[in-house]
Structure formats: C-alpha cells, structure tokens
C-alpha cells in the first residue's frame, strides 16, 4: 500500500516463486479456455446455422439423391453429416431388398454418426468446466501460500503495522483475482456451449427417425 506504487505488476514482481507459478498456470488456463471458447463459438454457430438451412432443403426436396448431392455444401451441419452417413449405408444396401434388416442397419449407422457428432461438438468443452471448477481453488492456493509467507515475514520484522502487513496480502490476493479472471469466462462458456450442444443433440435425435423413414420409403 505504501511502497508499492506500481500497481498490479509491481505486486507480481514482488511475489514469491509459488505465487508466480500459480499465476503462470492460471494464465495458461485462461489462454487455453479462451482458445476453446473462440473455437467452439465459431464451430457451434456454424453447425446450427447450416443445420437449419439443410433441414429447409431436406423438407423442400423429395429426392434423397438430390438432398445428398446438396448436403456436400453443408459440411459443418450436424444434421447433414448424419444424413450422409445414413445415405451411404442406404446406398450399400440398395441391392438387398430386405426392408427390416435395411431399416435396422440404416438406423444403426445414423445412431453411430449422431454419437460421433455429439462427441465432435462436445470435444474440449469439458476443459472449460475443469478450468471453471479448479481455477478459483488454484488461485486460492496461491493466496494462502502468499499470506503464509507474508505472516512469516511480519513475524521476522516484529512489527504488525499496516505497512508491513498490507503489501504481502495484496501480493497474495493477486492469485485469487487471477483465478477468478480465468474461471468466470470458462464457466460462462461452458454453460452456453452445453446448452447449445444439448439443442443440437435433440435435433439429431428428432431427425434421425425422419431420415430413416425417408430412406425406407425410398427402398420400398
């Protein structure tokens, strides 16, 4: 408070090695979680938009061959990808005319692709939850450590004046601040992406049966 006039950075430079390490870890966490947030935000937005466009086209056009040709344009759309997997399976079966077996195989292929799509969308998102849960604790650890050292040095200085106590505590609190700064966006991102991914998954589930029906109809 007194001698430390350079603000946050002078506090950081005065910190001990453990607090510095904690700050470094938190900075890394923050960078990675922001990378994931930016990456996923673009990915999910694109997937949802293209899925909606693809669905429009799917209901407009009756021929599944045409839809398949068009689905090339919707590479990021989860619904289009699942449709393509179903179509490829349908093509492989087209010679065999066993409808019950064909339906089963097509549904299985679609189910498989839906799961893969869920996994693809949800990849890395778990890390956001990890950062959101652990970063405050890591920061707290840095703070506790810093305060411990600060009290030790107060004991050595044999003075409990504010001037002796305050800088150490301010240094230590930087770690908690950094932890919160890393955790808050991560938690917000995690909640948002979880909700969006859940929406896409529900769509996949809903339209899987629709696709199967259209393929079976084509087979008959």
């Amino acid at each position: 408070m007194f001698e430390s006039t350079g603000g946050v950075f002078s506090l950081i430079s005065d910190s001990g090695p453990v607090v510095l390490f904690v700050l470094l870890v938190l900075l890394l966490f923050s960078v990675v979680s922001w990378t994931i947030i930016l990456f996923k935000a673009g990915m999910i937005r694109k997937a949802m938009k293209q899925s909606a466009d693809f669905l429009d086209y799917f209901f407009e056009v009756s021929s599944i061959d045409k839809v398949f040709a068009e689905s090339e344009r919707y590479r990021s759309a989860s619904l289009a990808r699942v449709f393509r997997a179903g179509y490829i399976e349908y093509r492989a079966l087209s010679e065999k005319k066993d409808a019950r077996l064909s339906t089963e195989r097509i549904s299985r292929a679609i189910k498989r692709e839906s799961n893969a799509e869920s996994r693809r969308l949800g990849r890395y998102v778990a890390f956001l939850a990890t950062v959101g849960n652990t970063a405050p604790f890591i920061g707290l650890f840095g703070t506790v450590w810093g305060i411990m050292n600060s009290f030790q040095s107060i004991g050595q200085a044999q003075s409990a004046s504010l001037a002796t106590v305050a800088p150490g505590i301010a240094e230590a609190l930087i770690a908690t601040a950094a932890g919160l700064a890393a955790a808050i966006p991560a938690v917000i991102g995690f909640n948002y992406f979880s909700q969006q991914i859940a929406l896409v998954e529900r769509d996949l589930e809903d339209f899987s049966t629709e696709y199967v029906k259209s393929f079976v109809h084509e087979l008959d």
Partner: protein
Amino acid sequence: MKKGDAAGEQRRLVTALVIALVLHAGVLGGLVYVQGLQPPEPEILTVSLVSLPGEGAQRPVESGAEGEPSVPDEPEVVDLSRSEPEPEPEAEKQQEPVEEPVPVTSPEPEPEPEPEEPSPAVEQHKQVPAESPEPERSVDTALNELQERVSRQKPTDLERALSRLQQKVKAGPPSGLYDRSSGPGRGGSGAVLSPYEQYLSQVVAIITQSWSFSGELLPRGQDIEAYVAITVVPDGDIADVTFDRRSSSMYFDETVRKALELASPLPPVPAEVATSSLRLGLIFTPRGIE
C-alpha cells in the same frame, strides 16, 4: 473429406489460439497502460536530518503525501506577518501622517523568539501607545485616535494569542533539548559538523530506519508532534525514554516508542561529545525527526 475436415478444424483451432493470445496480451497491455496513467502515489517519506539543513528542515517533504496530516509550520508564520499588519498602514495613513517626532519605543519585550517577519509587524503596533498620549488634539482627532487604538488593540491581542500558541507549538516543552534548527543543518550548507551534530545525525538516521508507521491511521488535520527526551549512556544503550509532550495520537506515540526500542543500542557516544550519559531531545512528526 474427413482429412480435409480435420485440417480445417486444426486451422481454426490455431486461429482461435492466436486470437486468445492476442486478447490476453491486449488485456495485460491495457492493464499496464492504465496503471501507467495513474499518478504515482506519493511514497511515505523518510526524512533524515543530514540532508535537511537549517530552517528549511521541514520543507522538502511533500506535504500532499497521502495519509499525512499536512500541517506545515511555515504557513502559520506567514499568516501572522501578512494578514495582521495589513490594516495597519492604512489606518496610520488616515490618522497619523506624521510620525517623526515620536520616539519609537517598544515598551514590552517581544513575546516571540521568531526570527522572521512578525517582529517588525509587532514593532509597528508598539508605536501606537507611544503616539497616543498627545494633549493638543482636537476632540475629533482624539476620538479618531481612540477608535484607532481600539481597532489596533484587538488585532494585537489576537496576534499575541496567536503568537503564544505558535510559540507553544514551536518551542515545545520549555527545554533547551528541543532546538528545532539544531543538528547538522544549523551552520548552513558549507559548515563543518561538530562531533555532537555528527553523532546526532547518526542517531536520527538509525531511529528513522527503525521507525515505521502508517499515515492513514493518524488523525487528519492536526499537528502531530511528540517531544521525546532520550538518555544515551556512553556505550550507546538508550537508558531512558521520556515523553516530554505526547502527540495527539496514541498510535503515533506508540510507533515512536517502538522505534526507540528497536534503535537501541545506538552507536557508542564519542568521547568528544560526552563522557557521561548524553541527553538528547527529539521531535517526532509524521514528516520525520527534527
């Protein structure tokens, strides 16, 4: 197609990483910039006698320092000398254009040992009683003079009261121990320090080093001064600490007491300074030791 997807995904991931890094660098850079914009907080000062010669001893201290009641002594003196005497010359011009025949005598001894301007001001007041008892005056002039006397008497009383107060504040306990302008600075910049002054500055530096207090805990707007007499035995131990006058803050007194405890033992008293124990008077103010 899958390969192309994976490559595209990787590219997007790297782009996101770069953006995230730039974002963090931007935030940290912004933080540095914002911190740089803030005016640097004034630091707590540690004033040492050695670097502060003579009567300017209190000046170099930034009076705006945070958490310090900045009540410098100087302005008070200026107040007295500037504001009080002002009405006088006017009054005198109106009433008494000729002053020559009156022998100027100052009947009472000057109450203030101030070396500065106030003393001429006081002298001017003293002329009044000397002028007034002149018999050949018209009633008007006499009346005027009376009024004048009355009007002059008031500021004089006020001034006396003020100067008494100021004297009290300045001189501290009636003891020769506390000489504000004493110490190494007395002889001006070029003077060679006497052994006593050298020792005193050494002692003050040591006490200043072991003295720490928080300006925020001191009452604001008050003049805080603690007059402390210490007895130093020849081997340097502080044998006795007496508060001749405590400051208005108990906290401040406590920090002073602790500083003296920490500073003991002081360096041994040189033989040319004192052979037996040495008694030193120190004035502790938030600005330093005087």
